[in-house]
């Protein structure tokens, strides 16, 4: 690289200053980019954590509680619970749940901006059920639990996604 040689003492080559400023700005922009990407990563972690807590909260409530009132129907339910006792599902409540409006259920499960997909995969295929929005997004939290449904062992999965 060829620099302009200053003819008199005390002069500053404008190329020197330009290069120094340019290098400084490049380094500054690189550091700024690192800071922004760290913030993005933290936001992504928080979102994932929020989705995980929401899915655990909802699945626990569905599979371990009777709901409120305990003999709830779609018209008067305040808290949705599908269990006769923890991890044993009531077929009446599951059937009632399946008839409910999706947006109402999202509200009752306090999922807010998230969507969900609920699936019962029983040993006996005729008892298999699905409810909710089929997930296609990459950012998804999926939980699975073993329960008893209509006297058969079944795998319940609950997916929450944005």
């Amino acid at each position, binding site marked *: 690289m060829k620099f302009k040689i200053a003819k008199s003492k005390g*002069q500053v080559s404008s190329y020197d200053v330009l290069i120094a400023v340019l290098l400084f*700005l490049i380094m500054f922009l690189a550091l700024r980019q690192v800071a922004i990407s760290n913030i993005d990563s933290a936001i992504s972690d928080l979102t994932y954590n929020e989705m995980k*807590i929401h899915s655990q909260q909802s699945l626990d409530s569905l599979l*371990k509680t009777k709901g409120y009132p305990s003999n709830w129907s779609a018209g008067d339910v305040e808290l949705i619970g599908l269990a006769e006792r923890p991890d044993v599902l009531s077929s009446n409540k599951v059937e009632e749940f399946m008839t409910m409006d999706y947006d109402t259920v999202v509200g009752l499960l306090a999922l807010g901006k998230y969507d969900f997909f609920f699936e019962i995969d029983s040993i006996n295929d005729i008892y298999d059920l699905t409810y909710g929005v089929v997930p296609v997004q990459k950012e998804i939290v999926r939980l699975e639990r073993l329960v008893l449904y209509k006297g058969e062992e079944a795998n319940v999965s609950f997916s929450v996604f944005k």
Partner: protein
Amino acid sequence: MKFRGQVSVETLVAVFVLFFVLAIVLSYVALLNNNTQNIDTTFSEKNDCLKLMYAMSQVNTEGEGTEMSIYSEHDFVIHSNQKAIQIGEQYCFFLARTNDYSLLSGDIKLTNVDGVIEVEQI
């Protein structure tokens, strides 16, 4: 250069440009720092809110008589009608029945009494 202490116009311009760039960078750094502090506060409030929310739901799920102690870094308000915990501008929605509360930061005890979650400062 014939006289000592003289500075060329080019030097003056260069110094001015350097100070100008420095001023822009410093003001941007100050803005970024302020944003980072806001994000820190938001994250801290949100995490505390989620922790309390899940604790409320857990105490409900585990049934009558369940007790849980939890530490909250922030003051918070529980709105029973909305089933919501409010910390600053953050809201989290739990799955349980409870009453209205306004509590300070510190250790909190949650108790499931007949299916209703009671919250008290300890």
